[in-house]
Each structure stands twice: as C-alpha cells, then as structure tokens.
C-alpha cells in the first residue's frame, strides 16, 4: 500500500473549520459537569440540595467541566503542533551564535524557536505570520494574532459566539505548546481573547518557558 505524496495535497479551509467546530463541541459534550457528585460529596444531610450552596456547586461543576474540555482540546492541539513542526523543522538549520554567555545563548535559542513558530509554522497553518511578537528576553513571549482565521467567521457581539471562541482557543494554545516542545522549548501557554464588540478574531498567546 502506497501512502500518497502529501506535500501538495490541500483541503478547503472551511473543512478544517467544520472539523474544529465538531471538535470543540465534542470536547464540551464529553466533559459533563459533575453536579450529582459535587452535591453528594459536599453535604451528608441533604442541606446542600437547597438554595445557594447547590448553586455554587453547580457553578463549580460547570467551571471544572469547562476546564476539562479546554484541557482535552489543548492536548489535541499539542499533538498536532508537535507533529506539524516535526516535519516543518526537518530542514531547518539553527544558527549557533558564538562567544555568548550561557544565559544569552539560551535566550537567543528560545527567540529563534519562537520566531520559527511565528513565521513558518503559523504560515503553514494560517497562511500568514503572527502579527506581533513581544518578549522580555527572559523566557516570556507574547504573540498577537489580530485576525485569527478560525474566529473570523464568528458573528460579533453574541455571548454564545464569545463563549465558543474562548473554548476554541484552547486548540491553538496546544498547537503552540506542541510546536515549541518539538523545538526543545517546554512552556506553558495561555491565551487572552482580545475581542471587543467589533473584532471577534483578535487574540494574544502568552508563552512562559519552563
């Protein structure tokens, strides 16, 4: 059995977006809030069934479920980012800058990896580079994409769209973490949704190298 040559194989962007939206839904639906467990554990006499105590547990259960769903998506993103970068970085040579002290060398290496992510990897996935890269040269990087493609079709202003967008952003966080991991940079990645009423597609990814 011959596997197809893949370098030039393409699919429509919409197909990726459809798949992602099923993925986000799946992550959400497969992480059910554990309401029953929470209220059973919290009170023995059934008092927790009444009033505000139960509402607080419901909130907590919802939050935990949302976190689990995000972790699931992030994990999937990690796998994709890691493998994609594996192939993209195959032919890359890394510049070793001579005559630098250890800290500067580490910092330079991290920057090169992050730049590779912002340019080559981001372009492979989104057809464009990261719009803005900032760093404190001490292991913290902020990447801004002012028009994340996957969010650009979301209707602006509705709460449902905002919640879905935030859920979806766990995936690119994972992509980034996976990509950097493949480049030898373990990190923690979080995301801020920069959307105001108008622009639903602006976000910033915060990378802290471990």
């Amino acid at each position: 059995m011959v596997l197809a040559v893949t370098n030039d194989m393409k699919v429509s962007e919409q197909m990726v977006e459809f798949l992602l939206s099923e993925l986000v839904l799946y992550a959400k639906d497969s992480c059910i809030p554990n309401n029953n467990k929470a209220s059973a554990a919290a009170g023995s006499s059934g008092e927790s069934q009444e009033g505000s105590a139960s509402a607080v547990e419901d909130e907590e259960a919802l939050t935990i479920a949302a976190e689990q769903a995000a972790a699931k998506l992030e994990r999937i993103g990690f796998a994709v980012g890691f493998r994609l970068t594996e192939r993209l970085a195959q032919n890359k040579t890394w510049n070793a800058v001579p005559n630098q002290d250890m800290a500067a060398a580490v910092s330079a290496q991290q920057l090169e990896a992050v730049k590779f992510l912002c340019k080559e990897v981001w372009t492979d996935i989104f057809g464009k580079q990261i719009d803005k890269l900032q760093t404190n040269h001490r292991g913290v990087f902020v990447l801004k994409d002012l028009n994340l493609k996957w969010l650009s079709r979301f209707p602006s202003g509705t709460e449902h769209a905002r919640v879905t967008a935030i859920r979806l952003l766990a995936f690119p966080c994972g992509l980034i973490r996976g990509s950097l991991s493949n480049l030898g940079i373990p990190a923690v990645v979080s995301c801020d949704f920069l959307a105001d009423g108008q622009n639903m597609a602006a976000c910033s990814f915060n990378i802290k190298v471990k």
Partner: protein
Amino acid sequence: MASASSVGNVLWHKQSKVNAELFALTYGAMVGELMRDLEKTDKIQEELDRMGHSIGIRCIEEFLAKSAAEHQGVSVGAALKSQMFTDTSELLKASLKMFLGVTAESTIKSDTSYTITLVDNPLTIFVELPEDRSELEYSQLLCGMVRGMLEMLQYDVTCKMTQSQLKGSEVNEMLIDLKQVLQEGAGEDYHDE
C-alpha cells in the same frame, strides 16, 4: 447548465485552501482522543459518523449556496432534486471536490444504490491503523458526511465503507443505499393521489 463536476472544480478553485496535513493531523489526534474516551471500536465509529453527518449538512448547504451564486440563481441542487436518486452521486462528487479537493468516481449499482470511489483521502495522510484496531473504519467521518449531505437533499441513506486503503485495498469505496425518500411537505417527489 453546467455539469455538477465542472461546478465542483470551479468551486474548489475558488475556495481558500490549507495544507491537508493540518487537517489529517487534527483528525488523527481527534480519533486518538475518541479511542481514549470511548474505547470500543463501534462507539468510536458511531461518533465519527455523527460528526461527519453534522459536517455534511453544513457542506451541502454551502455547496448549494455557492453553486447557485456561480450560476446566477439556477440552483444545481434544485434542478437535480426532481430527478433520480442516482443523480445525487454527481452532487456528492462535486461537494467532495469542493471541500476535500478529491476527484471521486461513481458507479451506479441500481436505482437505489451507488458507490463512490476515492483514490486520494486527506484524512489518512501518514496514517497506519494500529494492529489492535484493524477493525476500525478510520474514515467513517466521510460516510457520515455523505449521509448528512443526502439527508439535506431529502434522501435517507445508509453509507458504509466497502473498501479502505488503510486496510489494504487499492482504493477507498463507499456504498450508498437509499432507505427512503424524505417527504418535504408537497415537494416534487411527493404525489398526492
């Protein structure tokens, strides 16, 4: 009126495209997650089919809307709806082209049944089935898509993979069988006697 396949080609050319590898890797990671969550092969396939169904509905809607726009209001879909079930094979091939970039062949088996054959399958790039999962129909998503697309065209069908490259066949083949025509109020298919 333009043929469905030429419409498929035109729409494919107009679509924004992305590396199929991203798609394949995402699908693969998702299947991996399903394996972890659901464990049983048939449950995994059910879920893939369900997702595909959902995607298929969105695909055909998009296809019909864009193909109508292409031909200034003459909807390829509407024209084909009043003809035979087996004509839907043309629409399916055009949609597969538009979204997956793949050129499919079809073989009519009977008035209520046809096969769709694909050589290229972007879902399975770099994929090998693990030995303990040799039963899994990895591309079940495609079957769900077909089911969803045809449902929007008022046809209730079963779709299953009858040949799979991941299982050693030369090609990927889906068999589509019509179960029933769905009545849409007083549509063309429905005659009051």
